[in-house]
């Protein structure tokens, strides 16, 4: 028997495609935000609210990933937001190749924030890079404060963490400290925003942070973005 050392990443093909997506987005002045969360945590609601608050500063596009249906895409389209729906069938996550196809369908004529609403799932999306600039994890008070302990891999990739449905914090007996300790046990505490898509609280801070991230990536290339 001969033994051959390989040491090759099994998801290499996806990583390579993700890198090509990243180049494509950079050359088109697109900031890509991969939104990951459990089903029903408030991905669609958060994306809508964020677009509402930053609509006069950037152009937006949305890629909706769901196993089935066009429900979320229709919500975006109704509001005139450019949207592509990806139905993954029985796949539980999006991959770089799906994003390449969908992202190519938009026109980017000014600095754009592209939201990717990943399939509602706290497990598989964490393994697949898409070419995104930011990974956002949305937790919600309704799913309980123990999720960072149970699903660490998704939190490992989080560049920012949102706790949505903060209006229900008391009713859900959501233990904020236990939640934050869990995130901090996975990685150095990323920016954390407590928001409510229902009553609007916390959304300004979050939108402000996102805009500053956008400045950081696109500001240099285009000079004038959000008028100063």
């Amino acid at each position, binding site marked *: 028997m001969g033994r051959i*050392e*390989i040491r090759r*990443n099994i998801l290499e093909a996806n990583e390579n495609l993700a890198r090509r997506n990243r180049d494509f987005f950079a050359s088109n002045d697109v900031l890509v935000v991969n939104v990951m969360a459990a089903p029903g945590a408030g991905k669609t609601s958060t994306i809508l609210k964020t677009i509402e608050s930053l609509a006069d500063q950037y152009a937006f596009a949305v890629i909706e990933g769901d196993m089935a249906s066009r429900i979320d895409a229709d919500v975006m389209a109704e509001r005139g937001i450019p949207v592509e729906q990806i139905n993954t069938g029985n796949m539980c996550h999006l991959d770089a190749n799906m994003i390449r196809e969908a992202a190519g369908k938009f026109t980017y004529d000014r600095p754009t924030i592209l939201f990717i609403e990943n399939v509602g799932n706290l497990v598989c999306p964490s*393994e697949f890079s898409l070419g995104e600039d930011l990974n956002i994890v949305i937790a919600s008070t309704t799913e309980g404060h123990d999720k960072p302990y149970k699903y660490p891999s998704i939190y*490992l990739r989080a560049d920012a963490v949102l706790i949505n449905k903060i209006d229900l914090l008391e009713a859900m007996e959501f233990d904020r400290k236990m939640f934050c300790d869990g995130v901090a046990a996975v*990685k150095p505490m990323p920016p954390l925003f407590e928001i409510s898509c229902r009553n609007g609280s916390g959304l300004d801070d979050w939108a402000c942070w996102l805009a500053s991230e956008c400045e950081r990536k696109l500001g240099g290339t285009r000079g004038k973005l959000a008028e100063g």
Partner: protein
Amino acid sequence: MTAITIVVGDLTSIVDESVQFYFNIMTKGTILEDAILRFKRIAPEFVCTDCGHLFTGRSIGIRCPDCGGKSIVADKGQEFYIESVEVDDGAD
């Protein structure tokens, strides 16, 4: 006979049985049809945020065995790669 060693960190969402399942489907009728997959699982490693002690453990939020301090996930546990392939080269 061919044997492939795959390294999987326990912090990934990769399940050995499901890799094996798809491997069997994809290799049917190819030279890898009878290849054996060997899985090497890597336990997550944690580092103490107080004393820097490095230790392996099972769960997030585990306390440092040395000083009782809080821990944070270190590098190990997120692997998913092919380590090596063993092939019959005719020699004994």
